[in-house]
C-alpha cells in the first residue's frame, strides 16, 4: 500500500537549488495532512554529504545517489535511478520542482511508472486522503484542479518555483541520509558539450522582482534605465513580445503565453499596454505596478499601483527615491 510523500530534489553546482526547499516545505505540509512520513530523493555528484540539510525543511529521510555520472542532469541517468528508488519506496505522493530539468525528469518518471502527473502546480492540498493539485492552463487565463483516479499512485506533481512558501529552516532537525545501491547505465548517450553561466543574471522564472519593458521603451538603448531599476531591486528584466520581435531584447526575456509565465512578488510593467497574452503570463504576480502614459492601457486593470506618467521622466525619479530609501535603511 502506497504511503508517504517523497520529494525529488535538484542539486546543481554543489548545492540544492532554492526551489527544492520550497518543494520540501510543501511536502512537509502534505505529509502532516496525511499523517505520513516525508522522504526525499537526492541525485548528484557530491550530494550525499550535503543531503542532511533537507531535514531543516522537515524531510525525515533522504535516499541519496552520489555519483560522478550524475554531475549534470541527464534523463537517461537520473530517470532510472529515481525510478528504482520510487519502485521500492512506493510513496503515495511524489513532488518535484517545475524547473527545466525537474519537468523533464517528472514526465519521464510518470511514463516509466505509469503514473499521473500534474506539472507546474500553484497549489496542492489533501482531500479525503488523496492529492488535489491546482495549476494554471492557457498560461493563467484559467486554473484547473486535478484529481487522481482511485488507487492510481504515485500521485505526481511538480511545483512552480516561487509559489510554495518555504518553511523557516530549523537547523536543529537533520535528515537521515541513506545511500541505496541503484543500477545506472555505464555511460550516457547524451553529452553536455558546454555550460555557459549567465553571470550575475537572475532568471526570470525564479526572480522575486521583475521590471519589464514594452513598446513604450522606444528602442533597445533605453532599457538601460530598467536594468538599473532591476539591479537596485535585486530583480530581473523582462520584456513584451513586441520588443523581442523587434530584436530589442533576447527571447529569453519574453513574458507571456508564448514565453515565460512568471510569478514574482513584484512586477513592474513599463511602457507595456497589456496584450491578453502578456497579461496571462504575469497576471498571477503578487504585486503589479504599471507605468504608462496612456491611462486607458489595459495593463492598469491588472495593476495594484498604477502610475500614469511618461516612463522616461518617471523611472529616473523612481530610481532616485529607491536610492534614498536604501540609504535610510
Amino acid at each position, binding site marked *: 500500500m502506497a504511503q508517504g510523500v517523497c520529494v525529488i530534489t535538484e542539486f546543481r553546482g554543489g548545492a540544492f537549488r532554492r526551489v527544492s526547499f520550497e518543494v520540501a516545505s510543501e511536502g512537509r505540509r502534505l505529509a502532516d495532512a496525511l499523517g505520513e512520513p516525508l522522504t526525499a530523493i537526492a541525485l548528484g555528484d557530491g550530494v550525499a554529504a550535503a543531503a542532511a540539510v533537507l531535514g531543516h525543511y522537515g524531510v525525515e529521510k533522504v535516499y541519496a545517489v552520489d555519483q560522478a555520472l550524475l554531475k549534470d542532469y541527464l*534523463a537517461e541517468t537520473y530517470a532510472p535511478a529515481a525510478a528504482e528508488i520510487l519502485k521500492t519506496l512506493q510513496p503515495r505522493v511524489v513532488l518535484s520542482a517545475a524547473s*527545466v530539468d525537474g*519537468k*523533464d525528469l517528472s*514526465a*519521464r518518471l510518470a*511514463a516509466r511508472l*505509469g*503514473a*499521473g*502527473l*500534474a*506539472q507546474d502546480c500553484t497549489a496542492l492540498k489533501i482531500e479525503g486522503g488523496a492529492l488535489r493539485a491546482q495549476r494554471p*492552463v*492557457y*498560461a493563467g487565463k*484559467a*486554473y*484547473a484542479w*486535478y*484529481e*487522481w*483516479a482511485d488507487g492510481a499512485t504515485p*500521485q505526481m506533481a511538480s511545483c512552480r518555483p516561487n509559489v510554495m512558501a518555504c518553511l523557516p529552516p530549523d537547523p536543529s532537525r537533520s535528515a537521515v541520509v541513506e545511500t541505496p545501491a541503484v543500477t545506472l547505465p555505464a555511460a550516457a*548517450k*547524451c*553529452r*553536455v*558539450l558546454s*555550460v*555557459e*553561466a549567465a553571470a550575475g*543574471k537572475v*532568471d526570470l522564472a525564479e526572480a522575486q522582482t521583475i521590471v519589464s519593458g514594452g513598446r513604450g521603451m522606444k528602442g533597445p538603448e533605453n532599457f538601460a534605465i530598467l536594468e538599473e531599476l532591476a539591479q537596485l531591486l535585486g530583480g530581473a528584466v523582462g520584456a513584451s*513580445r513586441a520588443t*523581442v520581435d523587434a530584436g530589442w531584447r533576447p*527571447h*529569453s526575456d*519574453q513574458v507571456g503565453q*508564448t514565453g515565460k509565465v512568471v510569478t514574482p512578488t*513584484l512586477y513592474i510593467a513599463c511602457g507595456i499596454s497589456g496584450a491578453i*497574452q502578456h497579461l496571462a503570463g504575469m*497576471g498571477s504576480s503578487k*504585486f*503589479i*505596478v504599471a507605468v504608462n502614459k496612456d491611462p486607458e492601457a489595459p495593463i*492598469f486593470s491588472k*495593476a*495594484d*499601483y*498604477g*502610475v500614469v*506618467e511618461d516612463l522616461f*521622466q*518617471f523611472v529616473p*525619479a523612481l530610481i532616485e*527615491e*529607491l536610492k*534614498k*530609501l536604501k540609504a535610510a535603511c
Partner: protein
Amino acid sequence: MLKQVPDTETVIKIGPDGKSIATSDIKWVINPYDEYAVEAALRLKDSQGANVTLLSLGPQRAVESIRSALAMGADQGILVDDPATEGSDALGKARVLAAALKQLPFDLIVCGHRAVDDDENQVGIMVAELLDIPHLALAVALEVADGRVRVERPIEGAKLKLEAPLPALVTLGGAHAVWNPRYASLPGIMKAKKKPLEIKKLADLELPPEQVGAAAARVRVASLELPVPRQAGVLVPGDTAGKARELVRLLHEEAKVI
C-alpha cells in the same frame, strides 16, 4: 508532432461541464511551439533534404492545422482520430503518438515543449520515454550532423549545449523571434491540398484500447475556474517626483515588498 489549440488571442470562458472551456467562437491554430518545430524540421529539409511527416492526435478539425503545415512545406500528414482516445491523460496521448511513431521511419522527432492550451509540459517527453530515445528539451537552436543532433538550451541562469545520437526527440522552446516560422506561399497552399493525409484509428496502431481514453487516465481535471479578478488598484497621485515618492512608500510600507 503538432497539436491544434485556440489562438492565443482567445478570451477563455468555462464550458457548461465546469471542466473544460467553451469552444464556440474559437479560432483554432497550430500550437505556436509546434509551429516552431515545423519550421525547424523544414530548415533540415531545406539544408539536408529531410522528409517531413506531420503527426497529430484528433479531433477531425486538426486536419486544418495539418494542411496549414503541409502548405508550409511538410511532405505528408497523419491524424489519429478515434473517439476512444477522448479523455486520455498526457500518458494516454503519449501512448497513441508513440504507437503511431513506431510504424514510421524517423531519425528525429520535433515538437513544442508545451501546448499553449492546457500547458501540460509532458506529452513530448513521455513519447521519448516510451520510445526509449533521448530527449533534448527547450531547444533554441538545432543542428543535425553525422548521425547526431545538437541543441542549445537555456536553463535557470545558464545556457547548455547538448548532443545526442539519433534517433532522438527534441522539444522546442524559444520564442517567435527565434524561429520565425515561414508563411505558406500560394503555390504551397495549392500543393498542400494534394499531399497525402492519412486518418488512423487505434486499431491501425496496434495499441490496446484499455491503455488510452478516460478509463485509463490516471489523472484528470476535476474542475476549471477563471482566476479570481484582481481587486481594483489605485492610481498613485502627485506630480512626477511626488508619484515616485508615494510609490516607494506604498511598496515599502503597504505592500512590504521592497
